[in-house]
């Protein structure tokens, strides 16, 4: 992603975004009012959270949930909702407690 484009003359023609994966550069973590806390001890790694997360913010390692990408997580809570009721490995807590 080109940074600091000041003039219209420097823009790609036709308003195209000329490289893939640019959503990475768009940090949406600060939209969050609730923060998901992942408990790896309770987690059964069914990956329902990973499937449903609209921001691809569930980070896996070796097929297991490793962490949550807080730079992009908007705190929607879908992961906590989709986590099986008997597992409840993700808890949504007030973001304000971390600021």
């Amino acid at each position, binding site marked *: 992603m080109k940074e600091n484009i000041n003039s*219209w003359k420097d823009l790609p023609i*036709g*308003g195209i*975004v000329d490289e893939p994966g640019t959503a990475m550069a768009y940090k949406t973590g600060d939209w969050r009012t609730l923060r998901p806390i992942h408990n790896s001890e309770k987690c059964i790694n069914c990956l329902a959270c990973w499937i449903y997360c609209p921001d691809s913010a569930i980070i896996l390692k070796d097929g297991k949930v490793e962490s949550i990408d807080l730079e992009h997580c908007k705190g929607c809570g879908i992961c906590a909702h989709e986590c099986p009721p008997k597992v409840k490995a993700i808890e949504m807590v007030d973001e304000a407690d971390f600021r």
Partner: protein
Amino acid sequence: MGKTRVARTGNEAMAEAIRQINPDVVAAYPITPATEVMQIFATYVADGLVDTELVPTESEHSAMSAAIGAQVAGARTMTATSSQGLALMYEMLYIAAGLRLPLIMAEVNRALSAPINIHCDHGDTMGGRDAGWIQIFSENSQEAYDNLIQAVRIAEHSDVLLPIMVTTDGFIISHAMEDIDIYSDGEVRDFIGTYKPLQPALDYKKPITVGSIDFVDYYFEHRRALAQAMSNAKNAILEVGREFGSKFGQEYGFYEAYKLDDAEVAMVCLGSTAGTGKDAVDNLRKRGIKAGLLKVRVFRPFPAEELAARLKDVPQICVLDRSDALAATGGPLYAELLAAMFEDRADHTVINRIYGLGGRDIKVGEIEELLSSQVSAAAGGKSIDRIGYLGVRE
């Protein structure tokens, strides 16, 4: 150089040009009087004379959408339409321009409803004049053919990359057979060259996003770049017109000036009326009135400075508009020309007559009468209506 003199209607001439251009994709929906263009072209597709993927759609909105998709994918794409069909494309016209797609359209000028009318006026094309499309008007079948060939080069010019519509007058040109010179397939194909899309979306090694949203922070910059492309089109049009002249014999510019150098009165118009106007000019000159004519070929980009400079020494000017802007200030050609001429502040009288709506005929005698009455009003110090209608039952 292989020129062949043949008899062709405007629609046949445009279909012939499209065959020679051999576009990758054509997407269209039929509408009178443009239907024939695609009807004829479809026979070329069926006969295997072209490599084109012809996409018949269920509406003009879809036709333009499909054309946009094809062009985004990297295909040289064309379409044809008229009147309500063009109107149904309006939403997509802006998108084609904003995405900077060098789409090519054969547009056959026809009046807009209501009332329903299938005949010629320029109301349909004028509705798309602020959409970011280059607009070129043709006086006859020959120009329709020549313009469509040049359109490819103008639209795809690296400084431009804008969609382009080449128009003919419905029925008057589209359905009238005239003698025209056509060039060999090889020469036309050499002239237009191969299309090299800037960044085709189907290049999976270089993924891109097309049609994304701009917030307040970028929209203006993208539109500014679009405006610049339209400015750049001016040079490209001249460059391509000159090269066309050196290759095929007839050079093209922004306008054609006919007996304008010593003119005391000049008519300014678009399209087929220019031909009739030239006969009127000759008749007036036989009667001792120094008449002239300026045919505007390129309406978008509007060659304001060039037109104003060419008319600088003509005291009496009559702008004939084949559409009504319904702005209570006359027609679109008049408004733009008047604005262009305001800069030089010379002592002109510029009047406007809206004529020919819905195919109403304009005769040589009517033009003669109009121009001569303007000259005699000026000579007698009488005032003349600035804006009016010609050929309507008052």
